[in-house]
């Protein structure tokens, strides 16, 4: 153990009970802000049993729950937790499957299929769409994304997340190469234009809030 905290351990093992104690500490804030707990990650769907147990406890305590997911999972897993989740924060990175494979290492087929099913099952969903210049902000992709979203029921809103470079330091600390080194954050003008394009499809669009 390093007393000075010069070595930082990112994360620690905790039980459902311990996490609930932490969640309960902020109850008064949720009640004031009408907020609640967001399970994010990594990818919370990677730990389905643990997530399910936490969601169940939160529901019983009337704490609002949100799950932030990239949607890459068996639909059965999503289906199992669905009724305990008040809001899904669901990522769409790109509609172009070739690019999706290239940058995330996985196909987007199942992700989009899951999203459709989830939306049609009646769950409340907010879509997160990162704007990464040169990768997914082309007009064609924005239009296809908007078309897809507007075809789905129960989508509350799309949040545009302008690409930022805050992760560079983290990669450095991990000793990993940062592959998007050359990409700069999008201009406000660009973000605004993506917003307007999506809004043309009747979608409610916010900026940030990821």
């Amino acid at each position: 153990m390093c007393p000075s905290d010069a070595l930082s351990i990112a994360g620690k093992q905790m039980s459902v009970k311990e996490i609930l104690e932490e969640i309960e500490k902020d109850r008064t804030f949720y009640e004031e802000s009408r907020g609640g707990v967001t399970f994010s990650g990594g990818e919370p769907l990677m730990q389905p049993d643990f997530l399910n147990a936490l969601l169940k406890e939160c529901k019983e305590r009337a704490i609002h729950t949100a799950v932030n997911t990239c949607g890459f999972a068996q639909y059965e897993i999503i289906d199992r937790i669905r009724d305990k989740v008040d809001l899904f924060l669901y990522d769409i990175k790109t509609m172009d499957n070739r690019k999706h494979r290239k940058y995330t290492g996985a196909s987007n087929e199942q992700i989009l299929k899951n999203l459709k099913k989830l939306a049609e099952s009646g769950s409340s969903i907010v879509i997160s769409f990162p704007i990464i210049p040169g990768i997914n902000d082309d007009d064609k992709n924005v239009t296809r994304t908007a078309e897809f979203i507007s075809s789905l029921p129960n989508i509350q809103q799309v949040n545009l997340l302008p690409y930022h470079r805050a992760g560079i330091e983290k990669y450095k600390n991990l000793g990993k190469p940062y592959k998007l080194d050359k990409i700069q954050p999008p201009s406000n003008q660009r973000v605004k234009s993506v917003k307007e394009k999506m809004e043309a499809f009747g979608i409610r669009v916010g900026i940030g809030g990821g």
Partner: protein
Amino acid sequence: MRERIRKLRKQSVTAKPYISPERAILITEFYESEIANRVSIPVKRALAFKHLLENKKICINDGELIVGERGSAPKETSTYPEICCHTLEDLGVLNTRKKTPYAVNEATKKVYKEKLIPFWNGRAIRDIIFSKMSDKWKAAYEAGVFTEFLEQRAPGHTALDDKIYKKGLLDFKKDVIRSIQNLDFLKDADAYKKKEELRAMEIAADALIHFAERHADLARRLAKKESNIKRRRDLEKITDVCTRVPAHAPRGFWEALQHYWFIHLGVIMELNPWDAFNPGRLDQHLYPFYEKGLADGTLTKEEAKELLQAFWIKFNNQPAPPKVGVTAEESATYTDFALINTGGVKADGVDAVNELSYLILDVVEEMRLTQPSSMVQISKKTPDRFLKRAVEIIRIGFGQPSVFNTDEIIQELLRQGKLVEDARNGGASGCVETGAFGKESYILTGYFNMPKVLEITLNNGLDPRTGKKIGLETGDPAGFSSFDELFEAFRKQLNYFVDIKIKGNNIIERLYAERLPVPFLSLLIADCIAKGKDYNDGGARYNTDYIQGVGLGTTTDSLTAIKYNVFDKRHVTMKELLEILKVDFNRYENFRQRLLNKTPKYGNDEDYADQFMKAIFEVYFDAIDGRPNTKGGHYRINLLPTTVHIYFGKVVGATPDGRKAGEPLSEGVSPVQGADRKGPTAVIKSVAKIDHVRTGGTLLNQKFTPQLLADETGIDKLAQLIRTFFKLDGHHMQFNVISSDMLRDAQKHPERYRNLIVRVAGYSDYFVDLGVDLQNEIIKRTEQTTF
């Protein structure tokens, strides 16, 4: 902002504070006069006031709408030799010190040397106070266990209610005369004393009326010479206004502001009360005039705004009277702590926010001055719109307005036994101090250094810095077999020093009551006229004395660290710990890191540490609350530091929380700088474990980067955070919205950041004017980057 306001603002902001001996000379002249020695002391004080107001230079600055200065020009600063006569050395320090200097010219030094110092040496109340204090008191004072507020400034905290807007000084005089007529010389042994006090009030009222007439005359003369027609009309209006007020009750918005301002000047020229003077609930007081003016077409919203701006500049023109020595260290600022209250509730408990509340916030935003300070009172009835408007201004980042919980303030005042109407009409003044405005004298008597008391306890009564035995022998902690034994020793030690402080206060309070009554101020505070008693002698309806606790976070973390590392985990023995502290962690850096990083800390919503905070609070409360003072009132506690946590830190050696010798203590009720690692919600939960209701004010600092509040969601979130803290009965919160990088850059390039204002304690100040320790401390206050 209109051109003339822009000019006046610029004049106010750029003028350099300097010492004027004018007041000191006039007061001395009067004290030397024959008549001064033939009259009673209250009358002598009133005549001295009259002599000053008749003879001081007056001015009407170019373009001004609200007139009158304490000195004879903006930033000219008076001195008060009857309280504290500056030595030549003091004047040298004031003139040359890097931070908050006051220029002193050779002529001033000469008159001090030849006239003022010879007369006041031994006569100033400061000299008398020090000569009357016990050796124990002096030892504790010199060790930095506590400070003494009244050694350089008069009893203060004089916030006003609405009575002056309904009455002129001639009406107050009628009340005084009636009170004299009702005196019973047959049965009341104090009748003569009361009569002298009441006569003094009459003289003081006339003196201020005459002072206003002098301004009317000057305006009339200037109007005659003025070639610009518009300005001439303004000067004619000023003539009218100064003829009307403060003799008579104001009829319009302009008159109301000028009326207050003359009265403000009266109070701060009579003596130098702590925390200047405060109009209190300004949006409430002025609203009837505003409403009437708009209705009958004699006022527009723009004109009201301009008059308020002109009024704001008048405050900024009056730097705090110069302090020296320890008092300068406990309050190193030009700011004199007038704190304008907006919002809150009315006397009947309904929401008080009105159109003027918003207009005042507009003025605060546009003027961006360090003086006056401003705050919003937020009750559960306050509309979100008002809170969000305040947050919008907070995010600009000059530290104003601070945010107070009205419901909490009312509970605090009720617990102290005040009438519910008086509580609802109250608010906070100075930094965060709760008061029944216009009816209470609530005197801060000094800061109390809790970590110093712990240090003395750990050394069995010895002050390790000087090697002197100044405390009780409560036992060698190395021999304690339990934490409870240590805690009990701390409790005894704390009570010992509180007793010393209160014994001193009881003498000092009498000295002011007998030697330096304030008949002018007494006119304004209920029920001084009815009782025929001075403000400094218990004339107010409520008379409260405070001793302000400092270093709650440091003391908590220190006791927590002992419990955790010595008694629970047995990482070290008490003897070893004491050795390590003695050498200031030299060669024990590894252990220090354990204290800093692997030991529970207050501010993280963890009961392990927070329980000790609560226990310390109870000890401090029990030692002080409810003890009688000499004015028929009681002692209460509050928890705020102004800037004294820097000075107090300098006199405290290494502490068991890992703090090195000489470093600042924690401030207010905030966690130790950097010890809160779980974000603002955890800080709020921890701080809310304090029973704020049993205090007269607590101070919580939070710092946010501008990015955090950049958009609408940021504003909503901060508003919700405030609401939650208040739901948990928190008293006050204030915000610095700046990045630490920017502050570091400001240290390197002060010239680029002249206008950078930061929240220090209960006030804002220019960052570049602060001492380097205080600058570092502000940088260190945990920068919150996410909610």
